[in-house]
C-alpha cells in the first residue's frame, strides 16, 4: 500500500492544482488491478477449477456421475426441499413484509430483528436447534417416537432446517420495496370499490413483483446450496437424506480418483446454479432500478418527507 500512497503524495506535490478528491490514474488502475487479481485468485480460479476437475475424466464420465442412482436421488431431494421451502418462505415473506411496511404496531422492531435471526445464527446451530427439539434425545423425541413420526435424519428435518436458514430472503427484499411504494395506491383501489383481495392481486403484487422475484431467487439458491444446517439434521443416508451439497462431500471423502471427479461433477451443477442466480439477480436489480427511476419520475414533486423515506429505505 506504500506505493500508491507515496505516488499520490508525489503527484499532489507536483500539481497542486489537481482536485483534492481526484486520485491519480496510477492509483486508480492499481486499485482496480488489485481488486481483479484478488477476485480471480479467490473466486474465478476455484470456479474454473470446479469445471476443470469435473470434466477431467471426460464428458462421458461427467454425465455418468450425474446420472448415478445416488446422485440422482440427491438432486431429486434438493429439488423437493427447494420446492417446499421456497413457496413457504414466499408466503411468509410477503406476510411479514406487509406487516412491517404497511402497519404500525408494538414490537415491530422486534419482528424485524427476528426476521434477521437466521443471518446471525450459525447454520450448524440452526440444525442443532431442531435436533435438540425433535431428536431421539430431544424434548419432543419420545412423543414423536410413540407416534412413529420421524423428523430428524429424515426429509421433514431437512425441510425445517432449510426453511429456517432461508426465511429472511423474501421478507428482507420486500420490506424496503413495500415501504417505498407506500399505501396510497392500495387506498386508491379501495376508494374505487375494490376488495382487499382484488387490491392485493392487481395493485400490490404488480408493484413489488421484481423485488419478490429477486427474493425468491436468492431464497432458492440458498435452499439448494445449504450445507451446515442440513448436514446436522440429515444423518447422511446415501440415496435417502443426502442433498446435493452433502452428496458432494460424501463423494469427495470417498477418495481422490474417480469419486473425486464425481464430487466435482455434482459441485459443478451447484456452481452452475450460482451463476444462473447471479445472472438473474443482476437482471432483476436492473429491472428494479429501472422501475424505481420511473416511479420517481411519476412523483417528482412529491414532498421531501416521501423522497427522504424512499431514499433511506431503498437497498
Amino acid at each position: 500500500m506504500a506505493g500508491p500512497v507515496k505516488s499520490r503524495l508525489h503527484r499532489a506535490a507536483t500539481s497542486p492544482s489537481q482536485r483534492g478528491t481526484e486520485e491519480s490514474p496510477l492509483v486508480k488502475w492499481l486499485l482496480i488491478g488489485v481488486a481483479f487479481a484478488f477476485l480471480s485468485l479467490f473466486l474465478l480460479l476455484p470456479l474454473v477449477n470446479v469445471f476443470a476437475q469435473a470434466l477431467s475424466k471426460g464428458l462421458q464420465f461427467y454425465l455418468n456421475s450425474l446420472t448415478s442412482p445416488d446422485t440422482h436421488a440427491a438432486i431429486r431431494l434438493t429439488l423437493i426441499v427447494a420446492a417446499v421451502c421456497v413457496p413457504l418462505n414466499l408466503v411468509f415473506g410477503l406476510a411479514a413484509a406487509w406487516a412491517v411496511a404497511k402497519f404500525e404496531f408494538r414490537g415491530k422492531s422486534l419482528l424485524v430483528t427476528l426476521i434477521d435471526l437466521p443471518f446471525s445464527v450459525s447454520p450448524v446451530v440452526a440444525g442443532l436447534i431442531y435436533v435438540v427439539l425433535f431428536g431421539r434425545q430431544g424434548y419432543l423425541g419420545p412423543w414423536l417416537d410413540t407416534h412413529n413420526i420421524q423428523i430428524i435424519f429424515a426429509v421433514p428435518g431437512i425441510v425445517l432446517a432449510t426453511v429456517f436458514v432461508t426465511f429472511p430472503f423474501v421478507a428482507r427484499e420486500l420490506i424496503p420495496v413495500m415501504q417505498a411504494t407506500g399505501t396510497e395506491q392500495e387506498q386508491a383501489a379501495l376508494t374505487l370499490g375494490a376488495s382487499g383481495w382484488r387490491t392485493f392481486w392487481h395493485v400490490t403484487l404488480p408493484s413489488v413483483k421484481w423485488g419478490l422475484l429477486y427474493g425468491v431467487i436468492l431464497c432458492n439458491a440458498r435452499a439448494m446450496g445449504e450445507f451446515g444446517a442440513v448436514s446436522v439434521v440429515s444423518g447422511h443416508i446415501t440415496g435417502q437424506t443426502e442433498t446435493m451439497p452433502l452428496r458432494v462431500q460424501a463423494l469427495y471423502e470417498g477418495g481422490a480418483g474417480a469419486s473425486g471427479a464425481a464430487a466435482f461433477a455434482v459441485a459443478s451443477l451447484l456452481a452452475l446454479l450460482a451463476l444462473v442466480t447471479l445472472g438473474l439477480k443482476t437482471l432483476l436489480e436492473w429491472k428494479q432500478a429501472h422501475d424505481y427511476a420511473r416511479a420517481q419520475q411519476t412523483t417528482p414533486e412529491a414532498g421531501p418527507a416521501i423522497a427522504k423515506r424512499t431514499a433511506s429505505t431503498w437497498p
Partner: protein
Amino acid sequence: MSIEIQNVSKQFGEVTAVNNVSFSVKEGELLALLGPSGGGKTTVLRLIAGLEVPTRGDIFISGQRVNDIAVQQRNIGFVFQNYALFKNMTVFKNIAFGLKVKKWGRAESASRVAELLELFGLPGLGERYPHQLSGGQRQRVAIARALASKPSVLLLDEPFGAVDAKIRQELRDWLVKLHHDLNVTTIFVTHDQEEAMEVANRIVIFSRGALEQIGTPREVYEAPVNEFVARFIGVLNVLELEVRNGVARLNELEFPGHGLLEGQRLRIGFRPYAVQVSSDLSQYRCRAVLRHTFFLGVMLRVELELPSGLMIRARMAKEEYAQLGLADGHAVSFQIRQYRVLAREGAPLAPETAAVQELLPTMGEGI
C-alpha cells in the same frame, strides 16, 4: 349529495387530530377545507371517504349515516395528493379500474373512459403509463379515475400541492369549470388561503383539529370570527396596544380608548387596504418612510416604516401610486381607516368590540 358532519372527533393514540367538528355541505357545492398543516383537514376528508373511522360523532351522506359503511360502498371519488395512480397500468386501465370493479360491461366502460379522456383533454393518451405524463396530466387522470363510476361526492386532497405555480393556476380554473360542468358535490383540502378563496363556494377553516369558521370567501375575509381566521385569511397588520391617558397607543400610533381600562393591553388588526397613504406630509398625522414596493399586478403592496422602526403593510391601486408620485425611500403620511380589536387583556371580546371599527374622519386626523 349533501354531507353532514356531526360532532366528529378522531383520535390517533394520544393525538386528537379532529376535535368535535360539525358542518354540512350542500348538494353541488364546491367546498374548501383550509388550515395550516396538521390542522386536521386531511383527516376530515379521509373520514368522509371512509379511509378513517371517527372516534366519536356521525357522518351522513345524503341523509344516510355512513359510519359503518366501508369505503368501497360509499360511492365517493377520492384524489390523493400525489395522485396514487397505478403505475403498472396504462391511463386507460387506471380510469377503467373502478368500472371493472363495479362490473361495468367492456364496451360500456370503454366508451366511458373515452368520454372522460375527451372531457379532460387527454385524448390519445390512453395507452401511456403514468410515468410518461406531465404533472398536470397525471392529476387529470387521477380526477378522471375518481369520477369514472359517477360518484356522488368528489374528494380531493391538496389537489394543487404537487404541481408548479404556472400549472397550478391552470388547474384551479379548470377545476372550477369542471365543477360547473358536472355539478358534483366537491370537497378539497388546501393550506393555501388564496387557492381556497379563488376556487371554493364556501370555506371551512381548521386549526389544531378544531373548526374555526365556515363561510363564503367574502364572509371569512370581511368578518373573521377570531384572530386566527383574521390572520390566516389574507394579509393582516397586527399591533399590540396599551391604554394610557384614555388612549390606546403603540409609540406614535393612537386609537380611541373608550370602554378600556387604564394600563390595559389589547391587540388590534387591520387589512392593508385600510391604510390610506398620502405623499402630502401634512395630510395625516402619522409619518412613515416607504421602504419597499411589491408589484402584485393591478394592486401594489407597500411597506411603511414608522419612526419607531415598526413596519406596516398597505395596499393601493397602481394608478393611485403613480398619482401620488411615490417611490421607495419617500416620506409619507398615513391613516388607518378601519381596524378590528382582536384580543383584549383580562376580558372576553364582546361582539361589538370585535366588529370592524371605523375611525371617524376627525378621529383619523386626530391620531
